[in-house]
């Protein structure tokens, strides 16, 4: 779990855990097999090259019967193959946690680069690369450029050349927490690529916080550690305990009394003043642990990404503790014959077991709430308050009532730390739920406001939406069918091509849609287009002067290539996004732009489409383009068995404008100018595939003046002003 624990006799039993991870065979059901460099599965490829040492280490063969029979290698710091096993198992565990909560495949963020012609190429990344021994630094990070996680190792002590410290090496790739943390960064980057843009004080902090939350609550799935800690704290998780601490060995390696981060505690000196991280080295001797107290002013005082993120982590952990203590009150009462006061000494092992089960259950649910909430936030500029609303909404979506008090506990804990949701009148959980689309439209249709102009000249937005949805639903359902049929089959593509909506598309649009589905590069659109022009045969005739006609595909089937299941979902998402874009601006004659993210000036939109875009919170102006960022298919399993599982599309639309920071207006030509501020807006839309209705639209408009002002003010005041020393920054676990 953490090598530091194995060095203390009393904690030895808590230091070892067996993780069960999904069998990752290297052959797909469809018979598609991967290249498999090093130790790789479907999600990760572990390459154990130690660049600073110029050394290669042997790779573990997880399928070796000798390894399988003993549930993997025995824990040891001295064998690089165990390091690989540890990284692989924990990273896979994190992926599984996300997939279970989100109900869909985890996809890594795609790779964007410029090719030789200067064209921007977007490429699918199948596997995240992991280098367990990449750095001689007290650091580990997810590198969004390389789509890789780099782990470092360093000698305990100060880590400088002049001071060798004790010289014992600390490996970040052996810390359960650091692995979960960095993997979460990578997963989150795959969902929201714009959460690495520093547009308000919460955004980067949120990235850190979610990574820590996942790392924290994942450990509750380790029964050995859990039982040990419940016994040690006598069931009171408010006391200093390992469950709430992250990266123990790493923390001690860089000169802290204990873990790198602690969700519930902090260190104080003799006078009871909290010791900041910078002064920790000097006051190591007198540092004393104390329970962190929630205070509503804490958030305003917190400086820096990690400090702010720590508050969100503490708030979620406090919510967990509230629920945990509520759930275990009865157990304690039973064990104490109603007094509620435990006798001194050790707890009964049965009680420990029962408490551990409750803790694990609550932790799992809290973690799921946090992860599910990720689908209920706008894709840009997140704040902690919005996250709270998302948590409540997402939970209500899978559990109708809240008699166990999970949601109330969240609101209470967040309030304690001064995290308040924006734009709500009271803090009742019902008030915090995002409004559903029907409710929003119901209101605006009858009251003066945003839709007044539309309402006088056009039919009511609700009926426009219904009509538009009916069309969209037909097409998207066919697309879903195609995905289920397998988009790597020619028959599937032919099925799509016969659909009426498909045939109404222009040849360019049809070609692009197919190209995207097949995951081919844009150049090949031409050959598909030729096919549509001939409309006779599937065989494409190239003119003989074409220089690479030999290597060019001659038939549609030549363009089909085998793909992994996740890659199919990725390309399907691209194609579905393109289709949605066409539907959103259907009256606009397509120009030469085959790519969905190009051009698309919306001035030629029909009034009806304007209404739809308005509902989605998309600004319809000449200066603001929009793009469909992603369309992902999710299956949400309810926690209440009375509720049905939902097949949903999670759709994200994005807009970007350049703002003149003086006037807060966009530039007339919509182009970047010197000194301009980049400003994004967008929305997350949840579309119920079974019922064919839009359920939620969570918007952040690109036209919002208050948000523009806030971002300008925040960014103007922050040119590197939240001071951290280089040393310190190295000591934090980084991530994008």
């Amino acid at each position, binding site marked *: 779990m953490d090598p530091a624990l194995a060095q203390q006799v009393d904690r030895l039993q808590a230091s070892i855990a067996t993780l069960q991870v999904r069998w990752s065979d290297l052959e797909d059901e469809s018979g598609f097999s991967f*290249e*498999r*460099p*090093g*130790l790789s599965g479907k999600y990760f490829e572990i390459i*154990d090259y130690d*660049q*600073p*040492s*110029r*050394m*290669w*280490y*042997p*790779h573990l063969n997880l399928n070796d019967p000798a390894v399988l029979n003993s549930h993997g290698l025995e824990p040891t710091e*001295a064998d*690089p193959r165990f390091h690989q096993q540890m990284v692989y198992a924990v990273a896979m565990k994190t992926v599984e946690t996300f997939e279970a909560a989100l109900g869909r495949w985890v996809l890594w963020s795609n*790779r964007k680069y410029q090719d030789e012609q200067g064209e921007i190429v977007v490429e699918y990344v199948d596997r995240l690369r992991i280098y367990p*021994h*990449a*750095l*001689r*630094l007290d650091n580990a*990070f997810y*590198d*969004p*450029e*390389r789509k*890789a996680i*780099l782990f470092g*190792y360093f000698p305990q002590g100060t880590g*400088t*050349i*002049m*001071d*060798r410290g004790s010289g014992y*090496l600390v*490996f970040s790739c052996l810390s359960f927490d650091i692995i979960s943390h960095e993997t979460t960064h990578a997963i989150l980057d795959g969902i929201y690529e714009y959460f*690495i*843009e*520093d547009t308000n004080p919460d955004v*980067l902090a949120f*990235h850190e916080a979610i990574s820590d939350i996942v790392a924290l609550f994942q450990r509750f799935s380790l029964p050995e550690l859990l039982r040990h800690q419940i016994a040690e704290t006598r069931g009171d998780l408010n006391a200093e305990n390992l469950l709430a601490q992250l990266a123990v060995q790493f923390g001690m390696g860089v000169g802290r009394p204990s873990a790198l981060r602690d969700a519930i505690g902090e260190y104080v000196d003799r006078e009871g003043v909290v010791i900041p991280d910078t002064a920790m080295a000097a006051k190591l001797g007198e540092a004393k642990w104390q329970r962190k107290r929630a205070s509503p002013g804490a958030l305003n005082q917190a400086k820096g990404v990690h400090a702010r993120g720590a508050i969100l982590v503490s708030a979620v952990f406090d919510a967990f503790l509230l629920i945990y203590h509520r759930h275990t009150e009865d157990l304690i009462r039973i064990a104490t014959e109603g007094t509620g006061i435990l006798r001194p000494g050790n707890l009964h092992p049965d009680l420990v077991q029962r408490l551990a089960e409750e803790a694990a259950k609550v932790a799992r649910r809290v973690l799921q709430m946090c992860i599910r909430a990720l689908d209920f936030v706008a894709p840009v500029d997140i704040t902690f308050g919005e996250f709270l609303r998302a948590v409540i909404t997402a939970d209500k979506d899978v559990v109708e009532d809240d008699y166990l008090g999970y949601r109330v506990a969240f609101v209470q804990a967040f309030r304690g730390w001064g995290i308040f949701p924006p734009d709500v009148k009271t803090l009742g959980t019902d008030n915090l739920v995002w409004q559903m689309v029907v409710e929003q439209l119901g209101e605006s249709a009858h009251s003066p406001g945003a839709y007044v102009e539309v309402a006088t000249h056009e039919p009511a937005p609700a009926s426009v939406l219904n009509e538009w949805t009916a069309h969209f639903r037909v097409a998207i359902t066919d697309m879903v069918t195609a995905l289920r049929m397998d988009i790597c089959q020619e028959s599937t593509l032919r099925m799509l091509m016969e659909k009426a909506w498909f045939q109404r598309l222009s040849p360019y649009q049809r070609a692009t849609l197919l190209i995207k589905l097949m995951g081919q590069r844009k150049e090949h659109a031409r050959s598909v287009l030729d096919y549509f022009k001939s409309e006779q045969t599937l065989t494409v005739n190239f003119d003989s002067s074409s220089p690479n006609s030999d290597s060019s595909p001659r038939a549609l089937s030549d363009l089909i290539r085998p793909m992994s299941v996740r890659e199919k979902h990725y390309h399907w998402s691209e194609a579905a996004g393109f289709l949605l874009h066409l539907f959103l601006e259907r009256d606009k004659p397509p120009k030469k732009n085959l790519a969905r993210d190009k051009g698309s000036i919306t001035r030629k939109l029909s009034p009806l489409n304007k209404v739809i875009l308005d509902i989605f919170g998309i600004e319809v102006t000449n200066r603001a383009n929009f793009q469909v960022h992603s369309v992902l298919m999710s299956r949400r399993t309810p926690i209440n068995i009375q509720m049905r599982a939902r097949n949903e599309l999670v759709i994200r639309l994005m807009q970007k404008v350049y703002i003149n920071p003086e006037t807060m207006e966009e530039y007339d030509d919509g182009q*970047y100018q010197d000194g*301009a*501020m*980049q400003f994004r807006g967008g929305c997350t839309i949840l579309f119920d595939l079974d019922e064919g209705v839009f359920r939620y639209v969570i918007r952040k408009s690109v036209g919002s003046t208050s948000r523009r002002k806030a971002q300008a003010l925040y*960014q*103007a005041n*922050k*040119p*590197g*002003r*939240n*001071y951290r*020393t*280089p040393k310190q*920054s190295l000591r934090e676990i980084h*991530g*994008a």
Partner: protein
Amino acid sequence: MAKLTVPKNKQVTIRSYCQGFGDCFLIAFPVPKEDPKYVVIDCGILFGASMGHDRMNMVAEDIREATGGHVDVLVITHEHYDHVSGFLMADEIWKTIDVEEVWLAWTERDEDIVAKEIGELKSKIVRAIKRLRLNTATYSDSVTELLNLSDVGVDVQRGFGAKKFSTGTREGRDIAIALSKSEPIFCEPGEVRTLGASKVKAIVLGPPRDAALLKVETHEGHQFEKFMASSEENALSAYSSFLSFDLDAKTGAFGLSAAAPSEDYKDRVRERLGLPIGGNAKDRWEPFGPRFRFTQGSRRWDAYIADPLNDSAVKAHADERNDWRRIGGESAATIEGLALQLADFVNNLSLALAFQLRNGKYLLFPADAEAGNWLSWGKSGFHDADSGDAIPSLAIESILKGTVFYKVGHHGSHNGTYITDRFDLIPNTAHVFMPFELAPSWPSIPAKGLMRHLDDQGYPYARSDNKVKPKGKFKPAKVQMPYVEPNSNTRDVKFRPLYVDLTL
């Protein structure tokens, strides 16, 4: 306000501006029956300093008044924001000042082959940083500040995707050069220039010509540039200046002696960089036992790649198509490391000057010179800039021994003052001025070791953050104490909020 003058029977008046973290000095050398010769050295403040614009305008305004709008020599020591930003911020004022001559280091001359090579080296580091900084979210603000020094154009304000962001370091330098009607003068090390009728001699100490020995070698094809030097001594200065981030800020001093560095030290540097270790020294960072270690091309390599897992990993890593995912040299080429390398590199290109007064005493202005620059001083002897005649009587030891005023190198950082060797020669009666202000992002400034050294040796010193140091505790400004020796005439020191005047 009156002009800055030098009292009778005095050699010089030095006005050290207290604008904050940055250099700006106005020196008046008396000329009989005429206005003094005015020399200005640098004019800048750290990027992002609060009220920086106002402060620099006050400084420029004061220079205009104190010199009557006429500066004889303007020295631009090196291209860092905290040394040139004043020209950018107060360009309106500067444009009304007549500047006779502008002096720059020879490394700024575009036509010079070696200078060109250095320029390329610099841009290589810049490119490496730009490659790395795509991952903006992960580095600290201190690094941002380091990068801003050299104007690598990190866009902290507008997030990703903004196309160009410039702090204007180059523009600041160019404005300064344009102030003079005549061509800028590029100073070569060892040159001695006489300042007209004042009879004061300006001695150019650095940057060294043998910086040419700092060749660039591309290491393993890509990712980071290693600085290789051809001789032991240059290896020393290269290592010490480029790896200063690894040297101990606590002691504040180099762990280097004037002699060649110990094998042990060099091995530790090499370990950190992942370079081959000389002799029989063992790599202490090596994490695993020999049976797990395989080096490409070694005898056991065939056995290693016999396992298909290993073979595929090696191939995947070497795969051209996956070039973008390959790792290499992160330990040395972290953005932190490169940013420091760049900052240190430019620092070492500082134009370091000494002024020989008529009484044979010296003023020492090393700008931000670091160890490599210090070590090279006087290497190639001294010669008259006009006639080219050698001046054998002049030696670096005598310059240091005769120093009466020392501007602390590199704002009092741990690597700006070469304590172990050369600095010891400066007598403890010399007045020391430290142009810095406490900044949380520069926690190692002032270096504790340097401060202790000054205290232990009893140097009188003042800091530009308006604090002076009597023996014992810091006292707030305007309590002017032993910046001058206890017995000397205190009229010779004037403390003002904006500057400290010292007359010698």
